[in-house]
Structures are given as C-alpha cells and as structure tokens.
C-alpha cells in the first residue's frame, strides 16, 4: 500500500519537454531514500496544461509542480515525500498566493473546466486496466450487457443529446438508431472510431487515446452491442506513436480480462477491435475516405448517399464516431441521459474539449460545458494573450472553420452559434491570434494546407483551392486588385457548392470568414499595398528613424547583404533595393530605431 502517489504526465506534450528523464530520476531518488514501498510513481496521460510541462502532481496533497527538471527531483523527494514539506518554488505559480497554497481546482485554468471526456486523463495510468476499472471502468459495458436492451442503450444516448464531436455535430443516438434499423437483415455490421485527427493545432483525440484508452474500447463495445456489430476498427494516424502503443496495450489487457472477445460477461455478446494506421492524409478524416482507407484502398471519398449506416465499411452497415464522442458514452450510460443533458445549451449538450494554441498563455487542453463564452476560454482558462497584446480573432474548426473576431467574444460556444457566425465547432482546435497576425496570411496558411491535402478526386477542390491560394498569394505579395477580392468570393461559393466531400465543401471557410470580418485588411493589402499587422514580407519596408539612431553600427554589421550604410556615430540608412527583409537589424538594434511598416 502506498501513502503517496506521484503522477507524472506522459502525454506527447510532456514527453517532448522531457518527462521521461524526470520519471527515471524520480524512481531512482525514491529508491535511494528507501521510499519504494511508500510512494507510488504513476505515468499518466495529459493534464491539459501542456505549456508548463513536464508536469507532476503529488497526492494526497494535490501539489501541482510545473516545469520540473531532473535537478529538482532530489529536492522533491527529500523535502516533500520524506518530510512532507511542499517545495513551493516549483509549484504552478497560480496555485501559490499570499494566503498559502491553493487547490488546483481553484486556479483560473481549472476552475471553469468540467472534465467528462477527459476525466481520467492525468488521473490514471493508461497502461493499467485495473486503474481504469478502479474509476468505474467497464461498469457501463457491464450495465448495458446485463441490464439493458440495445434499444434502451440507443434511447439513453439519444435522450442525452450527445452530438458528434468530430465537427459535424450529428446526433450520435440517431446515427446508432439508423445503423441498427436501416438494414434489418444485415449479416455483418461494423463500429469504427475516427482517431484521424488532422486539424492543425487539434490534439484532443490524441490525448484521450494516450490518457484513457480503455474508455474508447468500452464505448465501442457498447456501440457494437447497440447496433448489433461484433467487430470494430480504430483508425488512428501513424504519427501518434504514444497513442497507438497505449491503445494496443489496452486492447491486449481487455482481451485478457475477457472484456473483448467472445461471450462478454456471459451475455452471448461478442466484440473485438483492431487498430488501423493511417498515413496522415487529412482527407482520411472524412468518413467515406476513412472507411475506404481501412479497406486497404487509397483514401478518397465517395459520394453520399449511401450513408455508412446503410453501406459503410465493406458495404456493410457501419457507424463511425469520433474519439471524443466515444469518451462521453460510458459516463452517459452510468449517470443517465438527464445528467448529461443538464450540461450545455439547448441544442448542444454536455462538454467540449478544446486544444488551445497560438497566441495564448496556457497552451493546452481544456474541457468546458457547451455554452461557455470564448472570452472565458481565452482569458480565464487560457490566461490571456502573451506580452499584453490585443486579441484579434480565434480560429475554430481548423482549415474547415472560420475565425471569431473580438465582437463575438461573448457568444456562448455551441454548434449552432458557431455556424451562425460563419465558423464551426470542428474537432475543437482553437487557435488564438493577436494584433500581430495578418488575417490574409492566416487564410493563406489554411489554404496552403488544403491545397496540399486535397485528394484530387474532384475538380472544384483540386483546382479551385489551388486558384484560391494563388489569388491570396497575389494579394499578399502586393499585386492584388479589387477584382481579385470579388473573384475570391465567387470561387469560394463555387467550391463550397460543387466539391464532393467535406474537405472541399469547407475548404474556402477560412477565406470566407476572414473576408467577412477583416475585409479592411484585404483592402489594405490591395489598395495601399500595406500589411497592417506587418506580416506579409513583400509589403514591408524597413526604415531607420533618424532621431533614435545612435550610429552604433550594430545593424550594419549584422546585415547579411550590406544594405545598411552609415559611419560610426552617424545616422544609418537602409537601402530598400538591397534589403531582403530578414529582420536581423530589428532584432539587433538596442534603441528600437528600426521600424518595419
């Protein structure tokens, strides 16, 4: 029995900031102090505050240590674990106030969060099935198989109001109901999990698989029971090695315990799972392309209907849900539809996980009830914008979504509100942009991504997105005309209406929404040939302010192309014809005498 648990995050974020050596040092220090039998070191999934990794929580005190280095470990062992004195200097600064140490749940980052899908992430060891069972794991599957009919399971999911967390927001219960009923005499059905998380900046699915893989297994088995399927596939991208490894371990453990396989809980229900690795194509997040890819073909979408509920994987009735959607299911079964539908807004129930990124202090993973305002997410939980800069917009839904400008900061976030303001929930990537971001450049960034990722099957997407990108390039290089802005709009509408799958249909969204809210920036690029945020290189000129220049010659010496001339203690001048806009002089100047505009 252990009197203290040391939880060390082993998610991808903390792995890259160095949790492994910290873990090893902790184990060796603990054995040096003779505490192996008293202190339990646990590797967990993501705590969410990735910006402050490696993260360590020591229970029972609940002390939250951030940015722990190997050199800090002996102090934590000798002070905290042996003598019970919390090492205050290593605590997450938000938990330390003049009144003493605060509970983690009282800090800005966690206070407004509500963890349902992420409830076990950062709490249990994802590689031990017993820990999952200790936190009610597989109880929901047991309840479904022994107490409920498949129809009752579907009814609970339907009544809960759960909608697909992958972005579309289709009611999960309806999807299951269709798959159960549409083809009554089907000899085979399939349950699939979409873990092909492709939006730049989104990593919630990865974190669930890394931190709580059993919840996906349990939920997929429940889904299989509900629709009458005995076989499931998890489609996960190969660039998530930690997630794949833990899911693989979890599937093995579940099989050993008889929670996957034949006659689960002696109910006569059989279910088994396999992992399919994707090569990382964005289009494979689209359901028909994903299933084609599972079948072993090139990942290209096919027209719908027929929908997967009728003819999906290998032309058999199939349901495909996203990782986060599944992560909600066992809790809904155990706590009931009313519990789940008590959270959120009228049409969007429950919680949503967001991956916060971009210009924000607390980069990481947060889960909030639907209907939380963007202001709360950015300022309360996210800790605001670094360096006191001004918020400009947040991009939700990645390359398929749009931006939310300052005037909509107080809109409650849910599926319908986001669509009404020209964005979409998407899988939950939330990229914050400040005054230094050029919105035309942002649109160009996302278009470059979709041009790359377009599978090429249909013309509007393959050629249309390429043309969109070229017009954007023309504008950001200072060669755009007002006619180009009109052309952009026309082309956007055309691509949306005519593309085969979701990728193409939503690809113009970043352009549409930046045009809607930041048209003046486009016009500034075209008419004044200026980039207001100072991002688009071709439109920038570097100039030395004569009054501020001290003639120190630093800039002239750092300039790689000798574009700066001037004698010692005399005012320097930049030759715009030679300047390559590398910004080296600005970084070197100690007097802020060089401006770019």
């Amino acid at each position, binding site marked *: 029995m252990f009197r203290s648990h040391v939880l060390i995050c082993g998610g991808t974020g903390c792995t890259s900031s160095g949790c492994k050596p910290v873990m090893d040092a902790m184990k060796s220090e603990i054995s040096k102090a003779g505490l192996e039998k008293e202190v339990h070191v646990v590797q967990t999934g993501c705590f969410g505050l990735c910006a402050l990794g490696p993260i360590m929580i020591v229970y*029972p005190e609940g002390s939250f240590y951030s940015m722990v280095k190997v050199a800090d470990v002996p102090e934590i062992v000798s002070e905290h674990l042996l003598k019970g004195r919390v090492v205050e200097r290593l605590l997450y600064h938000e938990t330390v106030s003049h009144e003493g140490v605060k509970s983690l749940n009282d800090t800005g980052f966690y206070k407004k969060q509500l963890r349902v899908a992420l409830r076990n992430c950062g709490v249990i060891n994802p590689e031990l099935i017993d820990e999952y069972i200790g936190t009610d794991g597989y109880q929901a599957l047991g309840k479904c198989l022994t107490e409920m009919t498949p129809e009752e399971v579907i009814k609970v999911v339907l009544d809960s109001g759960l909608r697909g967390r992958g972005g579309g927001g289709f009611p999960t219960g309806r999807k299951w109901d269709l798959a159960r009923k549409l083809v009554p005499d089907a000899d085979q059905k399939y349950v699939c999990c979409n873990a092909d998380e492709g939006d730049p900046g989104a990593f919630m699915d990865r974190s669930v698989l890394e931190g709580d893989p059993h919840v996906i297994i349990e939920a997929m088995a429940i889904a299989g029971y509900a629709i009458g399927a005995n076989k499931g596939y998890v489609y996960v991208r190969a660039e998530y090695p930690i997630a794949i490894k833990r899911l693989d371990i979890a599937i093995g453990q579940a099989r050993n315990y008889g929670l996957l396989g034949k006659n689960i809980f002696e109910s006569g229900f059989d279910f088994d799972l396999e992992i399919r690795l994707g090569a990382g194509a964005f289009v494979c997040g689209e359901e028909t392309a994903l299933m084609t890819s599972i079948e072993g073909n090139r990942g290209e979408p096919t027209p719908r209907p027929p929908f997967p509920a009728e003819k999906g994987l290998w032309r058999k009735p199939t349901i495909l849900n996203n990782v986060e959607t599944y992560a909600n299911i066992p809790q809904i079964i155990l706590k009931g539809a009313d519990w789940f539908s008590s959270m959120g807004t009228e049409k969007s129930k429950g919680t949503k996980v967001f991956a916060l990124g971009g210009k924000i202090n607390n980069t990481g993973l947060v889960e909030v009830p639907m209907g939380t305002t963007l202001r709360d997410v950015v300022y309360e939980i996210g800790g605001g914008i670094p360096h006191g800069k001004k918020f400009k917009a947040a991009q939700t839904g990645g390359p398929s979504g749009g931006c939310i400008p300052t005037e909509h900061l107080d809109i409650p976030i849910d599926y319908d509100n986001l669509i009404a303001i020209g964005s979409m929930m998407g899988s939950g990537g939330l990229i914050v942009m400040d005054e230094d971001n050029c919105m035309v450049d942002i649109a160009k960034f996302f278009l470059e991504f979709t041009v790359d990722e377009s599978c090429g099957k249909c013309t509007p997407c393959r050629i249309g997105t390429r043309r969109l990108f070229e017009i954007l390039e023309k504008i950001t290089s200072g060669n755009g005309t007002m006619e180009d802005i009109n052309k952009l709009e026309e082309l956007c509408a055309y691509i949306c209406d005519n593309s085969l799958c979701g990728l193409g249909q939503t690809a113009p969204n970043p352009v549409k929404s930046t045009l809607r809210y930041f048209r003046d920036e486009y016009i500034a690029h075209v008419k004044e040939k200026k980039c207001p945020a100072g991002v688009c290189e071709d439109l920038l000129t570097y100039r030395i302010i004569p009054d501020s220049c001290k003639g120190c010659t630093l800039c002239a010496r750092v300039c790689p192309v000798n574009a700066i001339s001037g004698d010692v203690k005399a005012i320097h001048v930049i030759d715009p014809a030679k300047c390559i806009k590398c910004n080296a002089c600005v970084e070197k100047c100690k007097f802020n005498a060089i401006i770019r505009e």
Partner: protein
Amino acid sequence: MKSLAELKAIKEKMQGQVGIRNHDEAHTRVVVGMATCGIAAGARPVLQTIATLVQEKNLSGKVEVTQTGCIGLCQYEPIVEVFTPDGEKVTYIKMDEGKAREIVDKHLVRGVIVSEYTVGASDLNK
C-alpha cells in the same frame, strides 16, 4: 473475467488506491509529524500504518493522509493530528503502530475520538 462480480472485485480493490488522487477540500486530513524529531521517535511506521489501513478500509476517498514538519512538541512525537472538514482538530501524541491502528478503527471509521491518546489527556495539561 466472466462476471460482473469479478469486475466489481477489481474495482473495489483499486478504488482504495486510485481514491487518493481525488483531491477534495472536504476530506478529513490525518497529518503525521515527519520532521527529524518525529522520524527519530518512529513516525514513519506510524504514517505507513495509517496510510495502509486507510486504503485497505477504502477510506481514501474521504481521508487524506499526509505528513507535516515539526509541530513543536518534540518530546511527544510521534504526533498525529486529525482535522475534520468541520474545522475540528484532535492531536494524538506518542503514537506507535498499535495506537495508530486503534485511531483508524475508532476515530476514522466510527468517528469516536480515542481520548486517552490525545494531548489533552497527557501530563502536559496538569
């Protein structure tokens, strides 16, 4: 595993262990003095005993066992203090493993203070 009963058995076994990670302000806190004076007087086996029993008896969802530094009454170590959520504090002195067992059984499980081991019952107040 073939039955729900087996699943339940694993759950119960694990709950005591995982429950320690449920940090809640409403816990009863058991604090063992683990400064040099405490350790010298034998606080470690006391702490270990209490922590083990709390988990064995599935109390870890409600009771938090932790250490602290020197309380100041070094000659009465090992000292164990029990803080209940209502703000009450009971201080037990000169603890050993046997007494610790008694405190878990009586005070933590049944809510009965073992007054003969408290600081109030000692010579200190005479």
